[in-house]
């Protein structure tokens, strides 16, 4: 009988309380990953926090399951909401004509308005509104026909006006949701989830301060100041760092797909603030802290998880969580209070008097020249209307072609959906083979060459030929990347001749295979013995060794079968 051992794993548990590794290595032990809730078998090599067990629970890990369940009611529930600042992909800024080129020399993308010279006034960039509306449509938001701009005040050297123009009270769009694929960073568990949005608002980005500590000076670069941002605010629908990071990844894919943000988090095109609190199940929400300016999906996960852990530590130590702004220190792996922000900043919001209400029109007929408003007429874009959004692509891959979610996530994220359809529909490639070739070797190949699939040096025809050869099991999966790299160097050459030249055809001569098998079995008598005693998983060990002898040019399933036959025949 199988026993589910429910382990509550956390960094402290793993390292101090008991030997996590030994527990896992025990045969037939199955762990429930507290990160994703999935059953997890196998070696856990990463000692990451993936459960937030209380001190009590950690002490009582040896309790009976029923008692532990009782205990679990005193565990903590993290609640996370996100504010995502996505830079709008536009040639000029939100309220000025200055350029938005990333990496330009300091203070060269700055208009007088961006530097807050007195007497300058904001002039709304219609393209930014179009982009934000398109984003709102893609996220199923309700678009407010009339939205308004507010000023949010705080003194900061890289905010030259002393305020940021934003949309606090009457945002451009409200509601909406995004269906995203939750991916556990520990197990391979994937699951569709949905998070609700509160609003999408337009606002200005700030400049950058550079502190030269050595010379004791601060320098200001206003290139980013005034760049249009879409602030996308979610409901507190997330429960872990992985959960939030998965959402942000999918949101980024969506924005990139519809062309409203370039999604380059390393360049600051998307920055995330996370509101984090923890509470006991059934109790009201705890006091939240805000972790600001997280700039990679990895750091989203790490920052949120470390903040959750910190809050639990504070609460269990009898402390109180203060409503404060923190930042994530990637080097130390923990959040720290931000230095010069007051605890409760009063932003003194008030309506921006230089910008009349923004009115979205579907066509010219509703515009009145005398109404004091900023009128934006929605552009019709048939490409956009026909376009399949990432979630729709995943759905199609699953429903029409039967690609499992875990693979469709990769294909869609890597922008290989169209290629997949062409290969399957026009080149009659089989789905399993196409998926296998695209999702790993092809993605790695594109990554090595630093190109998109459109710019790939390997043509669709060559790729199709390769998949055909692969699906006829004439070549092993480990040879795929070799062939791709050869094709990239010499585009006129055919797949066939590359394989020929490199001798990559799969070994299907039984004599050679049996010779390899016999060699392996002869060299590992101990393993053969234990196989005989019933340890059937030894087959895998043998298989790997055989494949190694054959230089990877072998079909795993077939080898496995042959080894099994051999062993059973021999004894």
């Amino acid at each position, binding site marked *: 009988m199988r026993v589910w051992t429910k382990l509550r794993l956390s960094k402290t548990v793993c390292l101090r309380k008991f030997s996590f590794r030994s527990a896992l290595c025990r045969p037939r032990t199955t762990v429930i990953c507290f990160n994703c809730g999935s059953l997890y078998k196998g070696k856990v090599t990463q000692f990451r926090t993936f459960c937030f067990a209380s001190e009590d629970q950690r002490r009582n890990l040896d309790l009976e399951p029923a008692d532990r369940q009782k205990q679990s009611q005193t565990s903590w529930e993290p609640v996370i909401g996100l504010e995502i600042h996505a830079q709008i992909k536009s040639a000029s800024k939100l309220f000025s004509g200055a350029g938005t080129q990333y990496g330009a020399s300091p203070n060269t993308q700055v208009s007088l308005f961006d530097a807050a010279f007195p*007497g300058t006034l904001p002039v709304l960039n219609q393209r930014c509104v179009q982009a934000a509306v398109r984003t709102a449509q893609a996220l199923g938001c309700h678009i407010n026909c009339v939205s308004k701009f507010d000023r949010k*005040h705080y003194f900061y050297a890289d905010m030259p006006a002393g305020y940021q123009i934003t949309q606090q009270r009457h945002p451009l769009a409200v509601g909406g949701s995004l269906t995203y694929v939750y991916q556990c960073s520990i197990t391979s568990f994937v699951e569709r989830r949905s998070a609700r949005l509160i609003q999408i608002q337009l606002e200005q980005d700030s400049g950058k301060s550079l502190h030269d500590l050595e010379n004791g000076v601060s320098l200001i670069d206003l290139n980013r100041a005034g760049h249009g941002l879409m602030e996308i605010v979610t409901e507190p629908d997330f429960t872990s760092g992985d959960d939030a990071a998965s959402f942000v990844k999918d949101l980024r894919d969506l924005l990139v797909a519809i062309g409203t943000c370039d999604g380059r988090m390393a360049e600051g095109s998307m920055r995330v603030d996370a509101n984090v609190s923890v509470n006991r199940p059934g109790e009201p929400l705890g006091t939240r802290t805000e972790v600001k300016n997280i700039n990679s999906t990895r750091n989203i996960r790490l920052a949120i998880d470390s903040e959750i852990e910190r809050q639990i530590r504070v609460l269990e130590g009898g402390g109180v969580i203060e409503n404060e702004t923190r930042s994530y220190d990637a080097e130390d792996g923990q959040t720290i209070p931000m230095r010069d922000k007051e605890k409760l900043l009063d932003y*003194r919001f008030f309506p921006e008097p230089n910008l009349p209400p923004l009115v979205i029109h579907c066509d010219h007929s509703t515009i009145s020249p005398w109404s*004091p408003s900023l009128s934006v007429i929605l552009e019709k874009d048939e490409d956009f209307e026909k376009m399949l959004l990432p979630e729709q692509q995943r759905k199609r891959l699953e429903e029409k072609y039967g690609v499992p979610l875990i693979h469709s996530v990769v294909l869609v994220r890597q922008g290989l959906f169209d290629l997949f359809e062409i290969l399957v529909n026009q080149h009659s490639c089989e789905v399993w083979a196409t998926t296998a070739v695209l999702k790993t070797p092809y993605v790695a190949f594109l990554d090595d060459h630093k190109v998109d699939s459109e710019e790939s040096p390997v043509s669709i025809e060559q790729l199709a030929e390769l998949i055909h050869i692969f699906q006829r099991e004439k070549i092993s999966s480990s040879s795929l990347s070799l062939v791709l790299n050869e094709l990239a160097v010499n585009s006129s050459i055919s797949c066939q001749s590359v394989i020929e030249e490199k001798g990559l055809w799969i070994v299907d001569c039984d004599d050679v295979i049996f010779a390899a098998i016999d060699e392996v079995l002869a060299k590992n008598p101990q393993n053969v013995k234990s196989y005989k005693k019933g340890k059937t998983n030894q087959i895998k060990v043998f298989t790997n060794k055989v494949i190694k002898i054959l230089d990877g040019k072998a079909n795993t399933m077939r080898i496995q079968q042959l080894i099994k036959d051999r062993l059973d025949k021999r004894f």
Partner: protein
Amino acid sequence: MSPHDLALLCQKQLQYTKHLNYMLQQTSSDVLEKQAKISEQLYSQGTAKALEGIPIAFKDNFCTLGVPTTCGSRMLLNYVPPYNATMVEKVLEAGALMIGKANLDEFAMGSGSTDGCHGPVINPWSMVTTPSGERLSPSVADQSSDGSDWFVAGGSSGGSAAAVAAGACLASFGSDTGGSVRIPASYCGLVGLKPTYGLLSRHGLIPLVNSMDVPGIFTKTVTDSAIILNAVAGHDNKDSTTVQESHTPIQIDEDIDISKLNVGIPKEFYVPGLSEEVVTVWREIADLLEKAGARVTEVSMPHSRHCIICYHVLCCCEVASNFSRYTGIEFGLRCGSEESTEELYAENRHHGFNDVVRGRILAGNFFLLRRNYERFFLKAQRIRRLISNDFKNAFSAGVDFLLTPITLSDAPSHSWFIQKDSRTRSAEQDVVTTAANLAGVPAISLPLKLSRQNLPLSLQLMGPRFSESRLLSLAHWIENEVQFQHLDLDFHSVEESAENQFQFNDVIRK
């Protein structure tokens, strides 16, 4: 008279009245003469533009490319804008000669032009009459030493008003946020037009209250006012609050049928402290209109009494916000310790702003605190709506224009004016002017007659939004009827008889 002669004459007037302290930056005579020569050529070629060769001054809160724009504040003493305000641009495009930048209250906060860092503006009428009945001494520029008194020019656009009154230019621009054009126009005996909010671009006008600021026009006659207005009105891409339509030039209707007009007299504008002379002229003009066949009716604008307090709350809020850019980092005064950003800000702002400005910033930040927002800012906005509705109701009930006082009396003396602080004086002085700003309607200050002190007495006409054409036509009719005697400081005769240099009384055209 040729543009060249005109330029020379204006320069001479400016030279003789320099001690009135109305002009800050002056365009050099050489440059002006050169430009005047070009204008002259264009006239002879018949290609002269609308304002060709007309000398015009700007209040020192309009940004002028390459010319210091100080707002009368230490904060911006070193500030040279890298661009022209739209008003400046349009006027120059129309061929006008910019003669200089006019003095003002610091950041246009004040009603006397006494609070700028460049010192007070002296009302040019002080050269023909003084509070003590004596003529102004030539050394009035340092009045503090000899203790002589004089009349204030009104504010905050006092410099612009004085420039036109003294004859240094034919027109000038001020900014009207709560009466800052109409009050000095009234005290200096000029036509002061505050157009409808949104008709004139504010781009490049350093803001006091964005939602009320309007560039205003000083001229001696209503016709001149219309000419200037036509040259600058209409949509500006750079100001989203301007009208979308391009401007249809307004025409002064010389044959306006007064008998078809309904002029409202809002009873609430009969405010305490109104001088008997102003009441008299108010009655006289009402009678004049009635005699000409107009219907003159008493109307009620019940929320007018809240104007001042409403104005002050909204003004302070916007000031607090607008002025947070003056940190001395990108531009402006930088005098603080560089040890910390906060300290640097604090010192720059402390030394850069006067008490009036700092007071309003402080109050505004208080009103905008989350806990006060509803009680102050939102409430003031609601009251603003009610005040605006008062106008709408009056106009939709058949009233074409409103006739009201503009100031409580003729120009007050400087010694009296500085007895109270700016906040008190503004509350007194702006009492009947802020309503038009809160409602965004056009208003014009029209000089009508001289007081017992030989100072101008004026009234205000207000109309519905974008009714400038009719408003100016009515003002023009009244102007013709009353034949106001403008101040004329004629220095030609002075030059001829040097011994009579200061006998200005004799040279006023009566």
